């Protein structure tokens, strides 16, 4: 087996084994990884809670021409506009629904990435998919064109909850998809779950977690349902047709997940993420380590040299820009040094490995808010690192970091 961590200098202890997903050395090494994200916006329909850049089925169908070929051309064109940088340690195709594209189309995207930047040996090449997409031949093709990992949007194993979330698959399809993914040779399988919807009961959530763990995933993400502005869910809550998620119920659900996943041998390594050794999501690890990444496609974000960029979110605007030879940028934000330090802490503290405190972390600990957080058992120090010991209260710490001033250091 080739070294899965090409840019990681292993710690003496980790030399003999694959490091645990919450290993601080691994967490910090992720800052040096190179990754790329490609957004594939097409979906059969938009889920009521989703606020991503999505071209949903009805809009898609209304168009006289199938826009997917044109879109793939544009993404390939956008990739060609980027400076050479690489080889990449992680490539992630997200959406939308990336599997809405054919294997040919996906292959063209991956080829363009590989040709422009190179893909490191053993790199994580991940794709998001829905359980109902499972298809023996199509998924075998995913492996053939280079994907090593699949992230399945399972969300729940309760049909009532799935219906409330606007998902169209049956729970049984998820189990079939996991088994199928392993059979075709996708080396890393991740499941996404969502908790805290109105339709969910404590029992149905417990059953969902148990079912997910029985499938023995390499990686598990559990997200609290969030009411995002502009979504159908937000309109329903605003109109009193749906209840806003109850934070206490979500806390219960979170604690249940944490206990069950840990007992099943998964390592909690970020607020909402669990993995077995060797399987933390590298693309995300790089993000939390404030690493640099490229973003291609509709509404995609990138980060390089202290500049955060974002792409156009409207399909026509995106296509027109690339076809006219322009970068499809909607905006860019350059961060001052202090803002970067605040961000380093805020991102890093989401990880169980925590973050190297540095001057800003020392200041946080000394501050009034920092002392309150320490007293409440939220913030803790481990040698040179700061750790959030109660991850459900991470944003209390984040706001304390934002209220620090550079002059305090």
């Amino acid at each position, binding site marked *: 087996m080739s070294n899965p961590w090409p840019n990681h200098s292993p710690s003496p202890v980790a030399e003999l084994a694959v490091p645990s997903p919450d290993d601080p050395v691994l967490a910090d090494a992720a800052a040096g990884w190179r990754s790329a*994200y490609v957004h594939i916006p097409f979906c059969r329909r938009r889920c009521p809670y989703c606020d*991503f850049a999505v071209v949903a089925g009805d809009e898609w169908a209304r168009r006289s021409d199938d826009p997917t070929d044109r879109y793939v051309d544009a993404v390939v064109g956008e990739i060609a506009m980027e400076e050479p940088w690489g080889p990449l340690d992680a490539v992630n195709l997200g959406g939308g629904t990336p599997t809405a594209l054919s294997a040919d189309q996906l292959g063209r995207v991956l080829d363009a990435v590989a040709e422009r930047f190179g893909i490191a040996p053993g790199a994580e090449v991940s794709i998001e998919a829905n359980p109902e997409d499972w298809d023996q031949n199509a998924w075998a093709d995913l492996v053939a064109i280079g994907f090593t990992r699949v992230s399945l949007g399972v969300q729940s194993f309760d049909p009532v909850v799935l219906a409330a979330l606007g998902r169209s698959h049956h729970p049984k399809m998820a189990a079939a998809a996991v088994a199928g993914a392993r059979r075709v040779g996708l080396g890393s399988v991740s499941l996404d779950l969502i908790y805290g919807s109105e339709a969910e009961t404590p029992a149905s959530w417990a059953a969902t977690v148990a079912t997910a763990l029985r499938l023995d995933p390499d990686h598990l993400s559990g*997200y*609290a349902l*969030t009411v995002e502005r502009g979504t159908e869910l937000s309109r329903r809550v605003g109109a009193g047709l749906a209840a806003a998620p109850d*934070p*206490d119920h*979500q*806390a219960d659900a*979170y604690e249940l997940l944490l206990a069950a996943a840990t007992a099943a041998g998964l390592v909690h390594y970020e*607020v*909402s993420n669990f993995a077995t050794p060797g399987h933390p999501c590298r*693309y*995300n690890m790089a*993000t*939390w380590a404030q690493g640099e*990444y490229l*973003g291609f496609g509709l*509404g*995609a*974000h*990138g*980060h390089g040299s202290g500049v*955060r960029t*974002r792409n156009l979110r409207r399909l026509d605007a995106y296509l027109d820009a690339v076809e006219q030879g322009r970068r499809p940028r909607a905006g860019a*934000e350059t961060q001052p040094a202090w803002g970067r330090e605040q*961000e380093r802490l*805020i*991102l890093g503290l*989401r990880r169980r490995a925590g973050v190297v405190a540095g001057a800003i972390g020392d200041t946080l600990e000394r501050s009034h808010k920092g002392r*309150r*957080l320490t007293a*409440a058992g*939220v913030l803790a120090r481990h040698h040179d690192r700061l750790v959030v010991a109660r*991850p*459900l*209260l*991470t*944003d*209390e710490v*984040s*706001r304390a970091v*934002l*209220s620090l001033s550079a002059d305090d250091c």
Partner: protein
Amino acid sequence: MTDLARIRNFCIIAHIDHGKSTLADRFLQLTGAVAERDMRHQLLDTMDLERERGITIKANAVRLDYTATNGARYALNLIDTPGHVDFSYEVSRSLAAAEGAILVVDATQGIEAQTLANAYLAIENGLDIIPVVNKIDLPAAEPDQVADQIVGVIGGSGDDVLRVSAKTGAGVPELLEAIVARLPAPTADVTGPLRALVFDSYYDPYRGVVCHVRVVDGTLARGDQILYMATAETATADEVGTLTPSPSPGGRLGAGEVGYVISGIKEIDLIRVGDTITHAGRGAVTALAGYREPKPMVFSGLFPTEGDDFERLREALEKLRLNDSALVYQAETSRALGFGFRCGFLGLLHMEIVRERLEREYDLDLVATAPSVEYRANLTEGSVLDVRSPQDLPDPVRLTSVSEPMVRVMILTPTEFVGTVMELVRLRRGEMGDMTYLGPERVELHYRIPLAEVVFDFFDQLKSRTRGYASLDYEPSGYQEADLVKVEILLNGTPVDAFSTIVHRSRAFNYGRAMVDRLRQLIPRQLFDIPVQAAIGPRVIARETIKAKRKDVIAKCYGGDITRKRKLLEKQKAGKRRMKMVGNVEVPQEAFISALRIDE
């Protein structure tokens, strides 16, 4: 200067909405004091707040030059008066500056308690009354019935009552004639030493203090060296004139005249409304009688939201006090709220108006503590302590008793509501006094009630129980011992002085329960459980717990979310800035304001 015989000084007594301001506007129009195009509705109500609330807060004065049907020109000085029960002292000042009063009663509403009280006050002060039934143009008007009612109260004959519509102008020319014919000219010692009554004042940022005066004896002229008798301050009268209604600096005011004087005084405490102005060196020996220091009835702490604004609040209060002799204040420190002022007000409306003016005109953000009356604590060592703030009430072991201020209340109500009014008064610990029928449909009820029970929401309760028909007036009536206790509110074990209050023991539980429930809803969950308790001394009478916050984290944070997540956190952080620390509990500013809101 105007011949005494050609002067009429009068005020208008009316209930809110009975048309006083409209009538004043009509006078201005008919006498040509204001050009048609400058006519604004309710011209005399100069403050925005008055215009918005549709009530007159400050007494104001205007001179009308009127040519009567007999061909002679008269100076009619209209002294405007406020119309709310809180401002009865200002009414008394207006009355003291006039020889006559127009009693205005709405033809659709009939006479109200407070109008009646002011009419009695005017009669006691020797003023001649011209009764007027207004709004005769309205379909629901019952002018004859209302005229009978007025006659029943002030005497005279129904023929003396004028029928007017201030809105259409009908009957207003006849009213102007009646002012000349039926009200007396002032009597004065024209050549004697100067005595001028300061019945109003306001602060002009460019000119200093502007006093509205009624010259009682002698003459006041520009350049005179004048003495403010109560404060013993001397100054030069830089400008003397009349208000028509804009200032018209004629240079002189003779005996009997009403106008203004500016003496360059900028030190705001040097001029007391109610003071007598005389000439320095050759002045009068005795000041004019009849004025009393206004006595505040309701006390509340005002604290700036931002501690840095304390000095600005002090300056604003100093300026407001210039226009408002009834406002008193002294510095106060609260453990919960920091530095502020304990302020005394005439009543709740007065308190609200002062707070609104401070916030609006001086751009201050304020927290007001629960209003209180002035209690008397009788101490075991024999002395008596005035208690204007619950903080000042000594420990029960040092007390032999506590007394509270009482008021005599007069309520006028249609007879059908007598039962519900009696019930309300009983709930408020009132003792029944006389009951007088003013005809078959209206009854006058007298009670003695603790002031604390009246000042808070009694008026609103009375209005709602009588569908708005009852009216109310009250006057102080000494002190009476009562079973009063201090209810403290504790957050996480720390007493929050801003929420403490003194109440009758029978009310303590309700207050404590309501406050604890409200605070549980208003204070956001924090990192630990927060007990919220109401207690009398060591005994807890109500308790709630604000459960510790369990979840405060954005679930998803990936490459695309970072900028947005940061913005969201920044926004949440900004919302947290307006927090006050009480012990180790963060209390939003809003909680102080909402928890102490009286109307809930």
